[in-house]
């Protein structure tokens, strides 16, 4: 039955999008509904597609849903969530403490997470050297304005 979740999500997305298009401001010049037609058509399209998709999935509702199991197996969910958390912290720190320091911690954190604690030496060397090299080539050679 998990199969049916996805078409339902698409249905809600399409319906929600369609409703929000009605709240769009109207154009002050030309056709007032000009900016609304296209998104509204897309909303309807997604709703229709989600219904077809639902019917397709309904036919195989008894089948296994191996994709979901794959995702929940082993430490995959843990890795995913921690990556998201570390990335968000990175986004928060990026302009506050500067590129170099935040990147070293971000990369270091990811490496410890994925590559494991046992290889701490490699992790640190890679994190520091890679951050410095990218910082040098972007900020100094290419003159990108990095914080």
């Amino acid at each position: 039955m998990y199969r049916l979740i996805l078409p339902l999500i698409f249905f809600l997305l399409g319906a929600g999008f369609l409703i929000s298009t009605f709240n769009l401001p109207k154009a002050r010049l030309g056709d007032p509904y000009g900016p609304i037609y296209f998104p509204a058509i897309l909303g309807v399209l997604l709703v229709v597609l989600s219904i077809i998709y639902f019917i397709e999935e309904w036919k195989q509702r008894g089948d296994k849903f191996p994709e979901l199991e794959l995702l929940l197996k082993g430490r995959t969910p843990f890795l995913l969530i921690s990556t998201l958390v570390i990335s968000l912290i990175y986004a928060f720190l990026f302009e506050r403490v500067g590129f170099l320091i935040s990147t070293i911690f971000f990369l270091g954190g990811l490496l410890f997470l994925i590559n494991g604690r046992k290889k701490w030496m490699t992790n640190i060397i890679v994190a520091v050297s890679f951050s410095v090299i990218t910082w040098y080539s972007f900020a100094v050679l290419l003159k990108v304005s990095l914080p």
Partner: protein
Amino acid sequence: MGVDFDVILEGLMTALEPMNLFWIALGGFLGTVVGMLPGLGPATAIALLIPITFGMDPVSALVLMAAIYYGAMYGGSRSSILLNTPGDGSAIAATFDGYPMAQKGQAGQALAISAIASLIGGLIAVVGFIMLAKPLASFALRFGPAEYFLLMIFTLSAIVALSKGAMVKGFISMTIGLLISTMGIDLQSGVHRFTFHLPELSEGIDFLIVIIGIYAVGEVMFNYIGIDKPRGKKKEVGKIWITKDQWKRSKWPIIRSAPLGFLIGVLPGAGGAIASMISYTTERQISKKPEEFGKGAIEGLAAPESSNNAASVGAFIPLLTMGIPGSGTTAVILGAVVMLGIKPGPLLFENDPELVWTFINSMFIGNIFLVILNILLVGLLVKILDTPAKILYPLILVLAFIGTYTLSYSPIDFTFLLIFGLLGLAMKLLSFPIAPLILAVIVGSDMEQNFRKSIVGADSALSIITMSPITIVLTLLTLLSLFYPMILGWFKKRKLNNLPK
């Protein structure tokens, strides 16, 4: 325009001056590097180099910037092939068969054929440039809003049609891409749509962020699955030169795709992404073995590679003959050369023929240089595959974030990057085709705007189909791309029925 060979020769001599050779080499190398990195494309790289060009001779500056542009076409496919993470819109089509080739242990061959295809595509396009620049420029002018709208519809339908057997998923993917493309200011009315009062969103979401998120971040997340499994034997990378048979298979696709990509490149606003996707779908439709496409068919890599490089050459035609930038990158180049006192426009060929011909010849030299560089690099690049995945993936993530930062200079986009990463993960997991979504994000907003411009003054929305011969052809092509498999099936059936029992 009569082709004056003396001027061409003179241009060649100037292009061969050591200083210009140096700029070609430097630009080609830089272009290859930035092409490989996610997000950092030729437009950004050239824009960043503008201050350096301030002190340069205008001819050298133009040569350098062009070399970065087509250099990036070579580089862009490297990461598509090796890591399934295209560096730019025009490198997406290279993932379709390039990455499967690398997985089959043919990474070396894939890298080699894409460089060769790029070279041939580029050279054919340069010849086309010399012979046809002016007539093509006036042809491109005939593309108005209706023509562009239908060209984009055609490209989208051709891509969706690729997802055979999963059409619904293909259409859903496309629709979501179009939804994303509606974010930002609506040009025709100035209304803000779905910007959530964030000024960062007022220009919509950069399609490159979607590409980096879905491909690079999504690919890394997808590979978390089974990351702890002990790795099997060392990955085979194959020879770094193609076999005779492979050459035979890709020869014609390369030659066919070059003029196609070149023509699309000439159209202002179409560009490498559309060119490479149309070439890919065309090859697949005329192929005798369409079932091999997407599973590592060498012609499926060669065709788009030839096409996107040809398109990058074609994009200079409107710039140099009319002063109209045909793509984001050429717009940046235009801004830069104007600062140096060059005035690209209808008079450039007459006022400054030496500059134009030096530039065109530099593309010849540059393409030859790049193919050598890229083939030499193959040996080095395949080593990326030897890097342990557990170290490689964090590095890709860091590069994805930096690439995003160079697009908008705002960490807010990091959040979008993650959202698209998760979307990419879900799509890969549930085998939703990704290309329709990406292409829809790239063309969606232009498509809508062009449609609305085309119906101004038209009798009805349907009348735009019969507006010009070009629109009629594009409509037929669209129908063909959607129903070709059906027609083909019908013919086959009839043939079978006609056979004596």
